């Protein structure tokens, strides 16, 4: 139990550090990435390139094991249903991402720089997560 909490803490740290290095914590840069019709900064596409490359190699290696090191089972969704909530949700998320320049990971990571704009964003995001879960049923 304690070991799994410690490993979750370390992976969170690695994730937050990676976000900072990648430039994902800068809303102006995120908007620059999404602004393809004007002055486009494609840098953040390389976050996906690096992340997907490592994960695409790493996940199959992990899957060879029968169970995680500090747990009983792997928790994965194998759903392949392309349903309406998926696209409506992803669509709404993208609109908010474009307006604020923050997605959930970076928004939580920049809480460490605690100032009002971020706290307000994260507060409303939390409210949204609860409402969204209710809508989904």
């Amino acid at each position, binding site marked *: 139990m304690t070991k799994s909490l410690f490993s979750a803490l370390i992976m969170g740290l690695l994730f937050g550090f990676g976000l900072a290095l990648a430039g994902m914590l800068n809303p102006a840069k995120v908007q620059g990435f999404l602004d393809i019709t004007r002055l486009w900064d494609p840098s953040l596409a390389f976050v996906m390139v690096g992340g997907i490359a490592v994960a695409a190699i790493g*996940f199959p290696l992990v899957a060879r094991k029968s169970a995680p090191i500090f747990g009983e089972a792997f928790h994965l969704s194998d759903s392949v249903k392309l349903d309406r909530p998926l696209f409506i949700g992803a669509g709404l998320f993208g609109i908010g991402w474009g307006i604020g320049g*923050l997605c959930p990971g970076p928004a939580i990571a920049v809480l460490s720089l605690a100032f009002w704009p971020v706290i307000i964003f994260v507060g409303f995001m939390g409210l949204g997560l609860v409402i969204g879960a209710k809508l989904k049923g």
Partner: protein
Amino acid sequence: MQIDWANLTILESTLGGVLIGLAAVLLMAFNGRVMGISGIAGAALRLSDGRAWRIAFLVGTICGPILFTMLFGGIEMEMVASLPLLAIAGLLVGVGTALGSGCTSGHGICGISRFSVRSIGATICFVATGMVSVFIIGLF
């Protein structure tokens, strides 16, 4: 379209992505969990079992940039929206990721690298609406 050469950070962004991918693989290897932040945050808000590791992960996420600042001296950050707009954006991000079962980390990194059809569809969708959203904001 014009490339913003002055602000390109291909090396840093790729390396940052590698670390994010590594965190995702290791969280699966050690905890057996998908590193999807909207899912982790959403479940952490509910009073359910299995909150502890999620809170531990989020505490780590908050500390990551602190470690980065200690090592490299600072993080470039410029907010782009007023407080009322940030509230609306936060609400949209929360509702959207809950309905759509994931965000940039869960769908964009973890799902795509497992070749999940749902994640590929969701990622194309949120990047597209994000681009439209920024295009419209730029008109004002």
